[in-house]
């Protein structure tokens, strides 16, 4: 390897343990990142293109499969767009079921992220704990929808399964155990001296940049943007609830826009989701959960529909938006999926700048990318074109060693 700095460090694009592949290229001088570039789109599947030859009911099932974590986000956003075009009124009870399942999704997604974050920091005991307690949310989701992932519960005009009294006991058991656990989880993540010193002041995203880059969700809120669709843009049953966006100030800290603030927002959103589910369970109106049970009739209504609409939903990672245009035909003429990470990934070059190499895993993970990151790391010397391949394990090991040095 030549001795001349700066070096180019490509990270990715494949890591089997994470969700989706991405390639990140870092220019480093010593341990410090001086610039970063990223290339998503490693697994372009052409889902929007596939949708253009399918009918809306088929697309709902396709949307469930866009993401393995957001099993309800995309289908809810898509269904809301189609319902507006076809002028379908969703029964009130269905709005409540939608909110309950969406909030359970937020709990499991944030716990999954918390586990990943702990792992990236070298806290594998915390990682195991977070993923163990996540199972209870997964069990509740399975109890409601029948599936742990790809819930398939949303239908155009409502939901495909109701929540009955029989299921309440298991849902309550899950919520109670989280309430009991919350204090412990909060202390472990937010009070730990090493998490504090490794996450405070790293991966900084200023309020101005968060606004200029139109970031969404916990990433935006951690930088001081108060935007939360559930509060600002009432939809489903969220309009019936008195919600406030969770900001880093929830933990009594100032808004800094760093990795630590993103942890604060996500941890406190878990508590907020528990409250939302309890309130929805208590206030669920009686009635049907589908506008029309016969799929043929839903399709007939969609086939007559003409116009365009956007459906939005505040996913665990932020705003998810589907744009749909229909023109009295079986299939829509346009379907655009804007996932939440679409609005957050492009801040990586900003927040990685000036970071230490060992902090890259946690900073990359801090925006909760719905993409995978560090599999293979090759340190390439731009002049000599020689490459030394680092594995994901080696990069993670550097992160672990940093934690150990700080503990010592």
């Amino acid at each position, binding site marked *: 390897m030549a001795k001349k700095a700066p070096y180019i460090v490509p990270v990715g694009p494949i890591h089997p343990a994470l969700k989706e592949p991405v390639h990140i290229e870092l220019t480093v001088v010593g341990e410090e990142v001086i610039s970063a570039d990223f290339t*998503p789109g490693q697994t*372009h599947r052409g889902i929007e293109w596939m949708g253009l030859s399918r009918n809306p009911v088929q697309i709902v099932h396709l949307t469930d499969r866009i993401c393995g974590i957001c099993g309800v986000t995309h289908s809810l956003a898509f269904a809301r767009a189609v319902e*507006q075009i076809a002028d379908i009124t969703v029964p009130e009870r269905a709005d409540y079921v939608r909110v309950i399942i969406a909030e359970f999704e937020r709990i499991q997604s944030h716990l999954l992220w918390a586990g990943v974050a702990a792992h990236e920091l070298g806290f594998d005991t915390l990682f195991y704990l977070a993923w163990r307690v996540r199972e209870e949310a997964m069990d509740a989701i399975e109890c409601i929808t029948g599936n742990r992932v790809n819930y398939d519960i949303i239908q155009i005009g409502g939901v495909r399964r109701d929540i009955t009294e029989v299921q309440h006991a298991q849902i309550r058991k899950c919520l109670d155990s989280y309430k009991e656990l919350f204090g412990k989880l909060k202390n472990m993540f937010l009070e730990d001296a090493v998490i504090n010193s490794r996450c405070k002041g790293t991966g900084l995203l200023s309020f101005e940049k968060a606004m200029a880059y139109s970031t*969404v969700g916990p990433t935006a809120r951690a930088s001081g943007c108060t935007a939360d669709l559930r509060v*600002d*843009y009432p939809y489903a049953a969220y309009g019936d609830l008195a919600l406030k966006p969770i900001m880093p100030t929830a933990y009594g800290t100032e808004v800094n826009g760093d990795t630590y603030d993103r942890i604060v927002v996500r941890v406190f959103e878990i508590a907020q989701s528990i409250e939302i589910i309890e309130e929805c369970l208590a206030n669920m109106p009686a009635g049907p959960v589908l506008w029309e049970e016969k799929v043929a009739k839903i399709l007939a209504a969609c086939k007559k529909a003409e116009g365009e609409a956007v459906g939005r939903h505040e996913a665990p990672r932020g705003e998810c938006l589907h744009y749909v245009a229909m023109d009295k035909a079986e299939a829509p*003429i346009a379907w655009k999926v804007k996932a939440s990470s679409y609005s957050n*990934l*492009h801040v990586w070059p900003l927040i990685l700048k000036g970071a230490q190499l060992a902090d890259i895993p946690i900073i990359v993970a801090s925006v909760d990318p719905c993409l995978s990151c560090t599999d293979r790391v090759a340190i390439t010397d731009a002049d000599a074109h020689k490459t030394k391949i680092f594995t994901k394990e080696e990069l993670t090991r550097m992160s672990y060693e940093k934690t150990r040095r700080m503990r010592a």
Partner: protein
Amino acid sequence: MTDEILPAAAVVERLTAALGNAVIDSRIQIRAEGKEKRENTNIWITIQRDAVHAAVEALMQIWYPHLSCIAGYDKGADSPDLRVQYIFSIYGGVTASEYMVIFSLNVPKANARLPTITDLLEGAAFTEHEKTEYLGITIDGLAPAAHKFFLPQDFPDNVYPLRKDDKKIPDAMIKDLWACGRPAGRPPAPLGGGEE
């Protein structure tokens, strides 16, 4: 920019006044869900292509907007136009006040160009690159990217996934998984029967 929250009709009025003849039509779409039927509002404005930069500027005079994305589609193999939507929202962060503001415009395929809005909103670059890769729209004033952001790096030139005309994905690129059959050279199934 003021701190006052304008009613949706006033937002339309302000934008129409700023853009003049460039506004082709506008409508306000309201949706109410849940028990209390609290409303959310979407404002749809169709504008001339040349007015897009001015439209974003006028919107920024009202409130610092959030750009969800720029969407777009091909109106058909026979149509001379692409249709592009700039999907914004304003009053985000203010309880129950957010409006979507969506500017729609036609872009002729023969001259598929749009001006960049990155001078107004830095973060628009990502979604503008997407329009180039998916629909073949050249964004004037946008610094060229060193690589593709959304498609594989070896994706052929002059093919655009969301086009429906002669620049669409050729049939040769479409893999029908159902037609592939059982891969050759695989060991036989451990238990007899089941597979042919």
